[in-house]
Structures are given as structure tokens and as C-alpha cells.
């Protein structure tokens, strides 16, 4: 009977263990979230990025309540360790995501870190940031042959439809 098996099986528990304990986990996530709000795109280990995602989106939901709301301000002051980001959260991030209800963040996995630990890395960012996008937006080139032919065909159709009634 293998005695180490229970140590590897979670027995249905889904909570991730980060850092030295639950308090350490919250403190670490707080630091990562502060960095994310300041820089709007950060690169961490995949597990931490995944954990912080939930807290980042919840923080924006609280910020949407407005800075006059007592609970929202308490949450913001707790989660953001650098206090010059509290006005940024309420005046920049909350209005940015007014129209959206969910999905304020985007994560992408990166190649493993080049250190000895070869940790799985991920990048997490708030949508609508001013920096270059991770995946460049593909813009169709109008000068390709197929696009030119399609353009000519569309023009022809328009001319036919305009001349037919007359």
C-alpha cells in the first residue's frame, strides 16, 4: 500500500494552494493584483495568473458600484497596496468596462521560464490597455487578387441594382 498516495490526491478539493498558507496566498494575490492594476499587463506563473483573474474581475465589479459606496472603497483599499491606484481603479478601469458585464481580463500561456525551475508562465492583462496587443489583429489586405476581384464583383452588383429600377 503506497502511503504517499493521499498526499497527491485532493479528494475533491478544488482550492489551489499558493504560498505558505491562506494568509500568504491572499497577500501574494494582493501584490500581483496591485501590479496588474498599475501596469495593466503582467507576466507570472500560470497558477497565480489564473488565481488573480477571479480577484481582478471581482475588483472591477466592486469598482463599478462607484467610489461613494462604502464596501467598494473598503475592498479597493484592502486589495490595492499602493494607494495611488485607488483613484485609477474607480476613474479609469470602472468606466472602461461599463458596457461589459464579464470578461475584463485576458490570459495567455507563455513558454516556460528559462530558469532552473522551468515554471509555467502566463501573461494576464486588462482589456483595453494602451500597449501593443499580444495577438496582432489581422487586417485584410485590399490589394490581394481575390479581394480586388471581390471588390469588382460587388461594384458590378451595385451598378446592376441601381440601373435595373430605371
Amino acid at each position, binding site marked *: 500500500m503506497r502511503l504517499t498516495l493521499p498526499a497527491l490526491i485532493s479528494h475533491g478539493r478544488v482550492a489551489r494552494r499558493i504560498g505558505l498558507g491562506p494568509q500568504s496566498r491572499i497577500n501574494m494575490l494582493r501584490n500581483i493584483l496591485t501590479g496588474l492594476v*498599475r*501596469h495593466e499587463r503582467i507576466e507570472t506563473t500560470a497558477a497565480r495568473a489564473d488565481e488573480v483573474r477571479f480577484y481582478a474581475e471581482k475588483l472591477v465589479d466592486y469598482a463599478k458600484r462607484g467610489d461613494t459606496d462604502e464596501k467598494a472603497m473598503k475592498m479597493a483599499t484592502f486589495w490595492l497596496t499602493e494607494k*495611488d491606484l485607488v483613484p485609477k481603479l474607480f476613474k*479609469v478601469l470602472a468606466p472602461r468596462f461599463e458596457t461589459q458585464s464579464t470578461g475584463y481580463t485576458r490570459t*495567455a500561456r507563455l513558454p516556460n521560464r528559462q530558469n532552473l525551475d522551468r515554471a509555467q508562465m502566463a501573461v494576464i492583462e486588462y482589456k483595453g490597455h*494602451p500597449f501593443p*496587443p499580444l495577438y*496582432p*489583429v489581422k487586417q485584410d489586405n485590399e490589394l490581394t487578387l481575390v479581394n480586388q476581384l471581390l471588390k469588382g464583383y460587388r461594384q458590378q452588383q451595385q451598378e446592376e441594382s441601381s440601373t435595373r429600377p430605371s
Partner: protein
Amino acid sequence: MDLSDRETVCHVERKESVLTTNMMNLAAFVHSLRCSLLHIESRLLQASGLTLDKQLAPSLAVNGPRLLPQVDREDGQEEQSPGLTDGILWMAVPKKRRTIEINRTRRRDENNLLKVKNNIEPCTECGHLKQKHIMCGFCYAKVCKETALIRQQITAMEGGPLRAPAVETVVVYEGETPSELDKDKRIVERARKRPAWFS
């Protein structure tokens, strides 16, 4: 007499130890050293005349610790370290040499071999190889570099730590003017042409 008996016994043992020092183990060697030391001490005492003889009675007897170390006479040599010798007997040890056939089957077992990855493909943008579910390292490094330069400009504009403004930011390249929508935003200027991959 106690002293003479001890002397003779020590003398005999010393002779034995002197002959067979190289072959005996450390304990026996130490034992023999101890014996010789005692012998020398007793001889010195006799010569100096400070020994307790029947003729001279002690002027003052004090209750205190022993001046000379007493040699414990054992029948056999006590074990060097009983734990180690006992331990060697119950340690796990292979009974037989593993044959090459058994070794081969273990080494070539499927679980132990390296798995072939079939999720590697070239990136459509740059052509470097990447895994399907992971971003291209080269493209990300390219984006990182440009972001770092933009961030340098931002820190220069802010002038110090903890001065994040409560307004949006917009990056403007050479030859561009900020549009109507970017009126209230903080404008970060980059002294280069807009890269093709940054729309």
C-alpha cells in the same frame, strides 16, 4: 599487591599490543595506549617516591575524584559501534545481479520513455516553432520590448514612483496626432514609426 598486579597485567598486555598494533582495530589500540600511559605514570610515581607505600602513611586523606584513570578490564573486545554492525545485517540489499534482459525491459518500458509531442507547429507570424496552446516566444518578446520602451516613457513622464494618474493612456507614434476620442487621455509619445503589428 594491587599496584604490582596491575603493573604486571599492564606490562603483559602492553607487550601483546606492541606486537600486534597494526592488526588490531582502533579500540584495542586505544586500550593499549591507555595501558602504556598508566604504566609510565606508575613508574614515574615510583621514581619520584610519591606512591602510597605501606611504610609511608598518608598525612591527610581527602575524599575526591580519582587521580589516575582506572582501566576497565573486559573479557572480550567491546563492539566498536553496536548500531552499525547490527544495522548492516537488517539493511535492504539486492540478492542477485539484475540481468541485462530485466534491465532492458525496465529501461525500455513505455512509461519511462520520452513522449513524442505532436502539438508543435510554426507560428504564422514569425515562423518560429511554438506549441499550439502556448504563445509564440518570439512574438511575445517583440511585444515585450515595445511595451518596455513605452513604460520607460511613462515613468519619465510620471517623474517618480506611486504617481499613477487617474486618466487613460494613449500611445502616439511619429507623424500621428491624437484623435478626437483621445482628448482627455494622457498622451505617451514614442519617437519611432508605428510598427505594422500595432494597429
